[in-house]
């Protein structure tokens, strides 16, 4: 069995259609809040919320941080509450 038969890719890392394929690497991300069993995401805890924001102040996507759907909603709400009170910045250009 050649390598191409097994995973659809040759030694050059290209698929059958010749386009480069990007296999999923590493272990799947786990939601931080599920793992740590965080019961409530406090909007006043800016140090924690900053971990889920980019340097520009944007809320990081779920696919980047690995947060589950439910907790992503809570994070987004907490960030927005914190912004209103001047604890976190709005996205800057």
């Amino acid at each position: 069995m050649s390598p191409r038969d097994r995973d659809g890719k040759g030694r050059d890392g290209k698929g059958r259609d010749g386009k480069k394929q990007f296999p999923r690497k590493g272990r799947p991300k786990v939601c931080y809040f599920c793992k740590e069993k965080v019961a409530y995401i406090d909007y006043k805890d800016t140090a924690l919320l900053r971990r889920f924001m980019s340097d520009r102040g944007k809320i990081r996507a779920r696919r980047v941080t690995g947060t589950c759907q439910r907790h992503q909603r809570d994070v987004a709400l907490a960030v927005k509450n914190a912004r209103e009170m001047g604890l976190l910045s709005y996205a800057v250009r």
Partner: protein
Amino acid sequence: MRTYEALLLCDPRRDDAELGQTLDRFQALVTERGGEVRNVDKWGRRKLAAEVEDLTDGYYAVVTYDLDPDRRADLEAALPFVEGLVRSKTIRRDIRERKAAS
């Protein structure tokens, strides 16, 4: 009765005595409505992450209090008239405690 937690953002240009008056006024509004102030956590002056109403700094305080839910709207309506209070945000503390218990 329900437990609430309010984060108050006060004008830092006022001196400490005036800031104390602002906090006292807020607490008086709660007690006038049959509520009870449980705790006042003064964070003090802090730099704001973003400008709020043209301010770059702010004086923060967290007030935890018990109040009848029916009087909440009444209290909220009185807040714009508290001198030195720039912005406030109130959350229900019981939701947090219930979530923590489960």
